[in-house]
C-alpha cells in the first residue's frame, strides 16, 4: 500500500467524523494563529521602537552639561552650564569619530502670528543640527550658516506650530513674533512624529543660535545654555566617539583623575539597542505563551487519536486479518494525526495573518510577518502531529488481531 492510498484511507476516516476532526484541529488552529499573531505584534512593536529611534537622528550622542550642587542637593544634569563654545569647536575639529556637532539652546516661549498664539519650545542652533537629526525642510528652506553669522531674525517652524498659528495657510515668508520680536518664517520642517517617550517632535521652532542668544536668552555668553548634539561617523563609531569626547572634555575642563565628569553623554544607539532587547524579550514571551497553546492542541490530537484507536479496534482487527502489516496500521493513524495537525496549522496561519493584520491596523503599527515564523509554525504543527500521533498509532499497530476482532 503506497502513501497515496494510506492518505486516502486516513482522509476517509477523518471525513466520517467531521465535527470531531474540526474540534481536534481547532487546538492547533488556535495555537498556530496565536504564535503568528503574537510574533507579528512583537515584531511590530520592535519596528516602531526602531522607527522612533531612527527619527531621533543617526548615530546620535547628546552631551549634557554638569550638575550643580547646592548644600549637598544635586541639581540634575544640565542645571549648571559647563560646556563652552570652545568645547564645541574642539569636538567638531579634534575628534575623528565625530561627523558633525551642533549646540542646541532651548527656551520655552510664546510665538504669535497675526491672529493666533502658541507656547512652544524655541531652540537656537546651527544648520548642522538639522543634518544630525536628518530633518529636512518640507516647505521653504532651513536657515543657513550666514544667518547664524549675521544673527538674522529668521525662524524654521515645526509642523504642529504651523498648524496652530497658520492652519492650512502657507507660513513661508510670513512674520511671527517671539518674545515680541518679529521673525521671518523661512521654512517648515518635515513632520517627525513622536519621540520614544511620546513627546511631539513637531511642536518646536528653530532660530539661529546667535539670534537666540541675543534676542531670546539675552547676552552673549561663554557657556552653552543647552546641550550639544553629536553625530558619529557610523553606528559602530558611537562608542568610540563617546570615549574620545569624554577624554577631550575632561582634558579641557582640567578634571583630576578620579574626579567625576562635569558633563554626561547619552548614546542613543545604545539606548535603542536596549529598548530593542526589551521588545525582543516581549516577542519571545508572547511566542512562548502561544507555543504552550500549540502544545495543548497537540495533546488534544493525542487524546482524540487514542479514542479513535479504541473505537476502531475491530476495524484494525479486520484490516490485520486481511493482510495489513504493522506499518500499514501505524502509517494510517500517523497520517490521520498529521493531517489534523497540518490542516490546523494551515488554517491557523491564515487566521494568524488575518489577526496580525487587524491588530496592526488597530495600533497603527507596520504589519510584520516573519516568513521564518510561518515555516516554524508549519514545521512545529507537523512535529506535534507526528509526536502526539505516534503513541496512539503504535498502540493501534501492536494490537493482537484476535483480540481486536473480538473487541465489542
Amino acid at each position, binding site marked *: 500500500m503506497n502513501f497515496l492510498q494510506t492518505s486516502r484511507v486516513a482522509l476517509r476516516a477523518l471525513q466520517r467524523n467531521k465535527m470531531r476532526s474540526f474540534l481536534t484541529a481547532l487546538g492547533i488552529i488556535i495555537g498556530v494563529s496565536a504564535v503568528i499573531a503574537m510574533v507579528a505584534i512583537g515584531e511590530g512593536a520592535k519596528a516602531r521602537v526602531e522607527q522612533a529611534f531612527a527619527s531621533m537622528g543617526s548615530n546620535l550622542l547628546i552631551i549634557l552639561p554638569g550638575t550643580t550642587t547646592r548644600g549637598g542637593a544635586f541639581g540634575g544634569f544640565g542645571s549648571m552650564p559647563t560646556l563652552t563654545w570652545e568645547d564645541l569647536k574642539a569636538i567638531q575639529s579634534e575628534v575623528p569619530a565625530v561627523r558633525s556637532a551642533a549646540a542646541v539652546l532651548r527656551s520655552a516661549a510664546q510665538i504669535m502670528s497675526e491672529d493666533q498664539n502658541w507656547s512652544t519650545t524655541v531652540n537656537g542652533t546651527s544648520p548642522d543640527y538639522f543634518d544630525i537629526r536628518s530633518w529636512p525642510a518640507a516647505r521653504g528652506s532651513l536657515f543657513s550658516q550666514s544667518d547664524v553669522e549675521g544673527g538674522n531674525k529668521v525662524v524654521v517652524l515645526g509642523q504642529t506650530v504651523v498648524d496652530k498659528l497658520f492652519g492650512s495657510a502657507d507660513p513661508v515668508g510670513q512674520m511671527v513674533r517671539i518674545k515680541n520680536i518679529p521673525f521671518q518664517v523661512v521654512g517648515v520642517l518635515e513632520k517627525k512624529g513622536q519621540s520614544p517617550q511620546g513627546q511631539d517632535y513637531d511642536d518646536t521652532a528653530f532660530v539661529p543660535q546667535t539670534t537666540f542668544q541675543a534676542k531670546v536668552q539675552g547676552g552673549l555668553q561663554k557657556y552653552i545654555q543647552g546641550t550639544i548634539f553629536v553625530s558619529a561617523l557610523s553606528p559602530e563609531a558611537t562608542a568610540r566617539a563617546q570615549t574620545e569626547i569624554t577624554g577631550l572634555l575632561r582634558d579641557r575642563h582640567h578634571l583630576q583623575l578620579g574626579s567625576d565628569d562635569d558633563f554626561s553623554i547619552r548614546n542613543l544607539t545604545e539606548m535603542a539597542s536596549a529598548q530593542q532587547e526589551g521588545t525582543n524579550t516581549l516577542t519571545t514571551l508572547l511566542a512562548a505563551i502561544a507555543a504552550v497553546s500549540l502544545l495543548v492542541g497537540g495533546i488534544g490530537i493525542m487524546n482524540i487519536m487514542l479514542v479513535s484507536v479504541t473505537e476502531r479496534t475491530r476495524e484494525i482487527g479486520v*484490516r490485520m*486479518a*486481511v*493482510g*495489513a*502489516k504493522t506499518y500499514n496500521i501505524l502509517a494510517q493513524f500517523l497520517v490521520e494525526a498529521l493531517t489534523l495537525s497540518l490542516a490546523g496549522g494551515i488554517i491557523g496561519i491564515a487566521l494568524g495573518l488575518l489577526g496580525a493584520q487587524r491588530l496592526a491596523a488597530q495600533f497603527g503599527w507596520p504589519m510584520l510577518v516573519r516568513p521564518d515564523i510561518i515555516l516554524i509554525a508549519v514545521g512545529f504543527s507537523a512535529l506535534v502531529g507526528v509526536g502526539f500521533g505516534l503513541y496512539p498509532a503504535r498502540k493501534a499497530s501492536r494490537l493482537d488481531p484476535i483480540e481486536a476482532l473480538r473487541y465489542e
Partner: protein
Amino acid sequence: MPERAPLLALEDVTKVYRMGDVEVRALRGVSLQVQQGEFVAIMGSSGSGKSTLMNIVGCLDRPSAGRYLLNGQDVSRLGRNELAEIRNRTLGFVFQTFNLLSRTSAMENVELPLLYGGVSTKERHRRAQEALTRVGLGDRLEHHPNQMSGGQQQRVAIARALVSNPKVILADEPTGNLDSRTSIEIMALFQELWRSGITLVLVTHEPDIAAYASRVLVVKDGRVQSDKKQEPEIARPLPEEEATA
C-alpha cells in the same frame, strides 16, 4: 499412487495460554491434514478449542509447540508481518459478525485485501466487482453495510474473502447471526464455491450446518475427537412462499 501433498498439515500442535498464574491448555496435540478441495466443518462446544484451532489455521495465532504447514510452507514460526502477508495472499476470512467496515461501500470493503496486497486501482475495481457479482451482489456495489440485510452483508464478506483468490476460505460461525432461511442461502453459496474448487474450513456448533460439509471434525477438550468424511447434504434455498408459510 502417492497421495498429494496436503494443503493444510498440523503436526502435534499445542497451544497454551497464560492468564495470570493459570495456564490454559487450549489445544493438547492436534494433528490433521486437509487436502485441496475439501470442505471441512469443525464442530465443538464452546471451550473445546475449536476457535483456537481456527485462529492457528488462519495464521492469526502461532502454535506453542508443533508444526503447521500451509501449502507446504512451515508457518508456525513466522513473525507478525510475514503472517499478515500469508493471510493476505493465501487465506480468506468470513466472520460470524461479518466485520465489514461501516460507512464504507461494498466495493471498498471487498477491495480491502487487494489494497494491502499492492494491487493497482484499476485491477482492484475489476476484481472487487467480479467477486461481488459472483456472490450475487452485482447490483449493490455502492451500498453501505447499514443499507443491506444480514445475508447481503455476509455475502459482501464472502466476496472480500474471495477477491484475493485464496487457497483456503476460513469461516467462523458464518451463519451464527442469520436466520435459518438465509443460513441455507449462505451455505448454498459456500457449496457453489467449493464445487468450483475452493477449499473451505468452517467452524460451527450446529450439526445441520455441518451436514453441508464433506468432512466433519469434532473437537473436544483441545483434541480431535472424531474425523469423518461424509456425503454432503445439498443446500437448497427455500422458495419464497415456503419461507413465509
